[in-house]
């Protein structure tokens, strides 16, 4: 059944359209869910103030109504949505500014960290996975299997702490935060080196945490593909081993891996929260933790929505890649 290139394009666009609509619905659902959870909170930001004898209860009540905290839930939600559409994303009581300005900087930092870690993790996992798949059952495979199992059992929390310990004991790298003090006085090359030095511990932790699962999946995918008849045929044609693995087998194994890419973003985000807090990387993680303690509700909701946005964006990217890579997806869902 031959369809023209135009028809293929149209069907792909329709599929993507559907996925985008789906993503938007998910975002709306997530925001509603977050608001529902917030209704469980018996306290609010101003509770601390209530304890302060210098501030009268009337002031507290006035502040609460000024910020709309005493309104019923649906009203609060509508006001928040309006605030989002205005570009403010709610208001932070602790920082006394719209949530957006807080989010943007932190989100950028988290995105930078997670994107780098993701790229590195996949860059390592794919060749390693392909290699052990081709050497299935031999000592390299078993050794890698054992190490990934061990690595999988070490929680990220522990990984981060151990790495931090090593780095501090050996005085190898500067620790804490994103940049050292006096950053602005350095020239751009030194600035980059400083940034890189601060990145090493968080990125390494995230990469080590993601590697085991990625390697396992790549290996499993490759093994399945390597048993396919068309690989045997290609081998019979005398195609070299590396070409066989990377040009023939890997593209066929790409499908489940692309889906895995979308899913692994979730784990990476949760992991990055931990790592950021422990290493002091100024991302969404520490912001969320702070806001949790100070009951800064709109910041909490903003951060949860931001991270959900990242997740959905990641899985949309995976969908796009899937459509580009696998022609079956296009025609099936026409």
């Amino acid at each position: 059944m031959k369809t023209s290139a135009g028809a293929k394009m149209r069907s792909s666009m329709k599929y993507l359209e559907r996925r985008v609509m789906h993503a938007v619905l998910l975002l709306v659902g997530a925001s509603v869910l977050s608001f529902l959870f917030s209704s469980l909170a018996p306290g609010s930001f101003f509770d601390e103030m209530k304890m302060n004898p210098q501030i009268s209860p009337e002031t507290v009540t006035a502040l609460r109504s000024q910020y709309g905290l005493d309104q019923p839930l649906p009203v609060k939600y509508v006001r928040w949505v309006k605030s989002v559409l205005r570009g403010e994303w709610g208001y932070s009581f602790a920082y006394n500014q719209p949530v957006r300005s807080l989010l943007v900087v932190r989100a950028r930092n988290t995105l930078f960290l997670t994107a780098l870690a993701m790229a590195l993790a996949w860059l390592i996992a794919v060749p390693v996975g392909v290699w052990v798949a081709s050497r299935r059952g031999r000592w390299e495979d078993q050794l890698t299997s054992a190490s990934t199992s061990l690595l999988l059992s070490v929680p990220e929390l522990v990984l981060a702490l151990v790495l931090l310990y090593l780095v501090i004991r050996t005085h190898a790298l500067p620790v804490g935060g994103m940049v050292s003090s006096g950053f602005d006085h350095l020239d751009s090359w030194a600035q980059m080196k400083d940034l890189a030095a601060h990145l090493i511990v968080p990125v390494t932790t995230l990469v080590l945490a993601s590697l085991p699962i990625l390697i396992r999946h790549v290996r499993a995918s490759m093994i399945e593909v390597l048993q396919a008849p068309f690989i045997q045929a290609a081998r019979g044609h005398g195609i070299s081993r590396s070409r066989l693995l990377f040009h023939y087998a890997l593209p066929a194994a790409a499908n489940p891996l692309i889906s895995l890419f979308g899913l692994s973003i979730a784990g990476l985000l949760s992991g990055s929260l931990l790592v950021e807090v422990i290493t002091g990387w100024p991302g969404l993680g520490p912001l969320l933790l702070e806001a949790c303690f100070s009951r800064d509700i709109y910041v909490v909701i903003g951060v949860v929505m931001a991270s959900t946005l990242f997740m959905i964006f990641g899985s949309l990217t995976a969908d796009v890649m899937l459509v580009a890579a696998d022609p079956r997806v296009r025609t099936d869902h026409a």
Partner: protein
Amino acid sequence: MITGKKTSKRKLIAAAIFLLALHLAILLAGFVAPYRPAEQNRDSPYVPPTRIHFVDARGHLHLRPFIYQSVARPDSLYEYEEARDQEYPIRFFVAASEYKIAGCFLSHTHLFGVDAPAQIFLAGTDNYGRDQFTRILYGGQISLAAGLLATAISLLLGLCVGCISGFYAGWIDESAMRVAELFLVLPWLYVLLAVRAFLPLHISPAQTFLLLVAVIGTIGWARPARLVRGIVLSARSRKYVTASRGFGASDAHILRRHILPHTYGTLLTQAALLVPQYVIAEVTLSFFGLGLSEPMPSWGNLLANLQQYNVLVSYWWMFAPALALVLVSLGYLTVANAFHQRLQSGSI
């Protein structure tokens, strides 16, 4: 592959025995631990782990292991050395401080101990001089119990929703799966923190524990629900279910006898995967201060000490709870792997 099956069975048994021993030791923390978790020794803060010797200073071999008392160095703070004048043999089944087994039976017997004034700190002490080994065991009770209970909640919720969703299909299925997708799309740690934050912060330890368990367990229902739903969907289209209906079997009968047995294998594997995840969730929350706080020990707040720079750098034995966590993870993941392999080969 026969060898594959055998090794996986052996691994399963080994891991299961190991886990059982660990859980037993933690359950009987009162017996295994030489001291009580709240016992402070203000004059012995940050003592490194006591070394166990078999050969004394004069070169004699003792059959019974012994220790030397750690005394503070006169010149520096928090530095200790062994007082080699007196050997304190390690005695087993000693009578020491009182504790309760399972909350009802009183006992005085501890697995091991040394005579006063020496103290045996297998994992060192913290800044209040509390024995870390004891605190790790007692903390394990909290962390493991949280993990196990939360897993039970998640699996129960997931089983119910998955069964109803898969069995009745239609709009119930559609809506349930959409909600599940919503829960799956939110990054779990962010949601966990947010939900925990929205709930009262300053409550009693017992309430905190129950709250943690409820929150962790309830958030995680989506994945088991999806898995169970898939199984139920495929099982319910089998002809023997149709035949059962032909005899007038009720929905409950069909679910109980024909459909649920298919889910057991998956539920077991999910349980083995979820327990370590949920233990880590509790540890993370307590680490951040959103879970159990002092003085109740939990692996999380024990590790929280490491957030202080000087502790992280100088007192390596404070990492011990991390080792316990890794061992638990390793055990459960091996079991999960073995279950998964057996499930795929159709043994369960």
